[in-house]
């Protein structure tokens, strides 16, 4: 293949004691929006943590743009252009919305002068403001992040990820817990971001995934069950059995 994949996993495994949460996953994700789906306990979140560097793999290799990042910690991966949002929203509640985005934008500039006045740091400030504008939070810049509504916190997280000007954006259940209206907004935002940045979504909500992703990877019991465009995935009988056709438990998990 002539094109270097955006993200490549080669036989990646992660064990917790005797449990093989992720078991020999080999994946090669390309441009655009990709999604990783799977029923509860399929190893989605573990895989996400392996990709973002929160967990070290037990075996296998991970490459970003052809560079081996297997042994890099989360912040080192962030510096290489990998940004992420988490299922459990992680912003600094006591800091203002602007400060949150500023911190994210700041990381692209190495701390040459950590003692400088941060308001004077024009380049970082401009990026922070642009990211707030993009997600529509400019009006809340001076509010404490902890006082935002749930949907706004999610948007703030996306702004923080965008402010890092990532080459790869990882989104862990970006619409989890959102109202239908908020979901619609978030999907439009992610689609817009996907036009210029490569995105990997880990998501439960099938409607969201099939509406957004150009490529879907289905995980089951820590292994890749299927991998392809949405239409092929929807038609795959193995996927239907493992995931789409599942009973009410899964439905509850999706909406609850």
């Amino acid at each position, binding site marked *: 293949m002539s094109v270097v994949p955006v993200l490549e996993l080669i036989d990646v495994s992660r064990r917790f004691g005797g449990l093989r949460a992720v078991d020999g996953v080999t994946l090669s994700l390309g441009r655009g929006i990709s999604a990783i789906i799977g029923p509860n306990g399929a190893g989605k979140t573990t895989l996400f943590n392996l990709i973002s560097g929160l967990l070290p793999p037990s075996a296998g290799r991970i490459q970003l743009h052809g560079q081996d990042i297997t042994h890099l910690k989360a912040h080192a991966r962030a510096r290489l252009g990998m940004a992420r949002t988490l299922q459990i929203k992680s912003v600094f509640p*006591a800091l203002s919305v602007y400060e949150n985005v500023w911190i994210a934008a700041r990381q692209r500039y190495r701390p040459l002068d950590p003692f400088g006045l*941060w308001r004077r740091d024009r380049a970082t400030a401009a990026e922070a403001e642009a990211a707030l504008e993009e997600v529509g939070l400019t009006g809340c810049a001076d509010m404490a992040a902890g006082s935002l509504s749930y949907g706004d916190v999610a948007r703030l997280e996306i702004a923080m990820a965008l402010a890092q000007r990532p080459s790869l954006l990882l989104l862990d259940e970006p619409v989890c817990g959102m109202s239908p209206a908020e979901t619609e907004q978030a999907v439009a935002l992610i689609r817009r971001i996907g036009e210029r940045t490569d995105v990997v979504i880990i998501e439960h909500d099938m409607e969201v995934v099939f509406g957004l992703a150009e490529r879907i990877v289905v995980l089951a019991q820590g292994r890749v069950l299927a991998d392809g465009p949405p239409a092929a995935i929807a038609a795959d009988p193995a996927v239907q059995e493992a995931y789409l056709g599942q009973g009410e438990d899964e439905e509850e998990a999706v909406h609850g």
Partner: protein
Amino acid sequence: MLANLATLALNGLAWGLIVALIALGLSIIFGLLDVINVAHGDLFMVGGVLAWTAVETTGSFAAALVVVPLLGMALGLATERFAIRPILRNPALTIVSTFGLSLILQEAVRATFGPAPRRLMAPLPGTLPVFGTNYEIYRLAAAVAAALALAAFFLFQQRTRFGTWMRAVRHDRETALTLGIPVARVQLLTFALGAALALLGGVIAAPITTVDFRAGVEILPACFMAVVIGGLGNLPGTAAAAVLLAVTEGVVSGLSDPTAARITSLCLMSAVLLLRPQGLFAGAAR
């Protein structure tokens, strides 16, 4: 009587602001590293001893004021790197480690500086008439210097990149890490900064008290009380509590005796722990 009270209150204010400098260091180190630095009082003591040494050798108090906090920074960097960092994953163990450091500092000072307390002449002699009594100029200057250092620290925290990072790391280390904040370096510099504040406090306090290898043990409880009453992690609250405690103790000990004063502050702390465990100033600042 009123003049006497005013003097006691002023003494308390000056002392409280110095305690606040030390308590602030204690608080940021706990907030960012989860380390209860038992040796923090001894860093204050080392500041006084180094100030005395600097004045003896160079004859300049100003030199001590500049050089000693820098030495404190260096001492803090070395301590964090060699005594804290290797066991940072086990906060309980850091108490043992810093207690060891406390003993090392005390014994090192006793072996070199000697066990006898010494006095440092006030660099600004003379008195000023305040509320009808003559008040030592240096004590006022010490209060102003400590207040300026506190203000500088707060501005540093609110207005600089590093300060913003410090606040972020204090609130959520995991998130800070994934956002590319060099958490380990922020923690290292925080410890060094806390140490520098303690030594600066030692320099400022040296002409007011006696320079003694036990001084750290004496001041540490007041610093812990300030942190508890002000609210853990609430830095302006900690500073305010330090001043409140010192003024109260000063006035009560003037009216009766130091034991009654300490009992008063312990009662105050117990009341805060019972009624407002988040600290007296919870919610007032972030």
